[in-house]
């Protein structure tokens, strides 16, 4: 019953997130709203980590597995991507290096100016 109850809590939060998103017409996805609700619950002590520990470990340990079907869906987009692969790879490569360099420098600059 333990795992079922833990899953119940997490699914309940998903439902609540989706519900709030629809009712309040927020531009934030329901599941992300659910993530904020869970974070708030944990920080306030309303939800204890033990109450969801096993389900949390299961979901986080197998995270990559859950988006396999989403990834396989790429075969439906091959036509759209024809001749665009090099450009897509280029965007991925250049921006990743750029984001890393800019973020790192922003933090170093901030840490240095705070010390002064």
């Amino acid at each position: 019953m333990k795992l079922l109850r833990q899953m119940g809590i997490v699914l309940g939060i998903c439902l609540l997130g989706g519900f709030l998103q629809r009712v309040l017409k927020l531009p934030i996805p329901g599941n992300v709203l659910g993530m904020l609700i869970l974070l708030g619950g944990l920080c306030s002590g309303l939800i204890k980590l033990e109450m969801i520990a096993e389900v949390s470990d299961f979901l986080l340990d197998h995270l990559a597995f859950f988006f396999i079907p989403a990834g396989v869906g790429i075969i439906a987009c091959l036509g759209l991507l024809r001749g665009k692969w090099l450009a897509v790879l280029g965007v991925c490569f250049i921006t990743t290096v750029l984001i890393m360099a800019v973020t790192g420098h922003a933090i170093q600059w901030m840490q240095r100016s705070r010390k002064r």
Partner: protein
Amino acid sequence: MKNFLDTPLFGILLSIAAFEVGISINKKTKLAVCNAFLISILLIIGCLTWFHISLQSFNIGGDMISFLLGPATVILAVPIYKQIALLKANLLPVFVGITTGCVTAITSIIGLSKLFKLQGTICASLVPKSVTTPIGIEVSKEIGGIPAITVAAIIITGVVGAVFAPIVCKVFHIKNKVAVGIAIGASSHAIGTTKALDLGETEGAMSGLTIGIAGLITVFLAPILTKWLG
């Protein structure tokens, strides 16, 4: 004849088998390029095309796996909560750094997509490519992208980040441990974090903490920035 595959069991079992193979190849080679997820996707696509099985047949089971993406997104609150002391101790660098990273990500992706003449849907699919997959999928849907392209871009980005992080940090003189961790987490999410963990404990912890927060900030910024720049 093929009707026997039209059961959820087919998609689920094929996914588990492919993932199992992917993980064992990744463990044996210990190379970031041999990403377990990437291998499983290629194996499944190969299998479907080789045996002329439709994506619909696969998705009967696939949709059941995708259903768990919802709870998996919600549960991302747990790693943030576990690192909450670290977050409080580094509040300013974390928020300013990650926000800078997210703004750089979104603007540079839109700019480069225009330069490379990638049309709107592909561009929108690439915008959330630096955040963790479950959140990236949600953002992609929100701004009119195609989640499948987003997932592929996210994995490629993660592998690039994991492979090139040490070189980039060296070339651009990023030495501060907190800066290195956040820079890796903000640019290449969980896959990059595996590299950050190799670099050191502080780097790994900061990178791990960054994953969820970068996702959250992107959720807020992506729709606004794509509207302005799109």
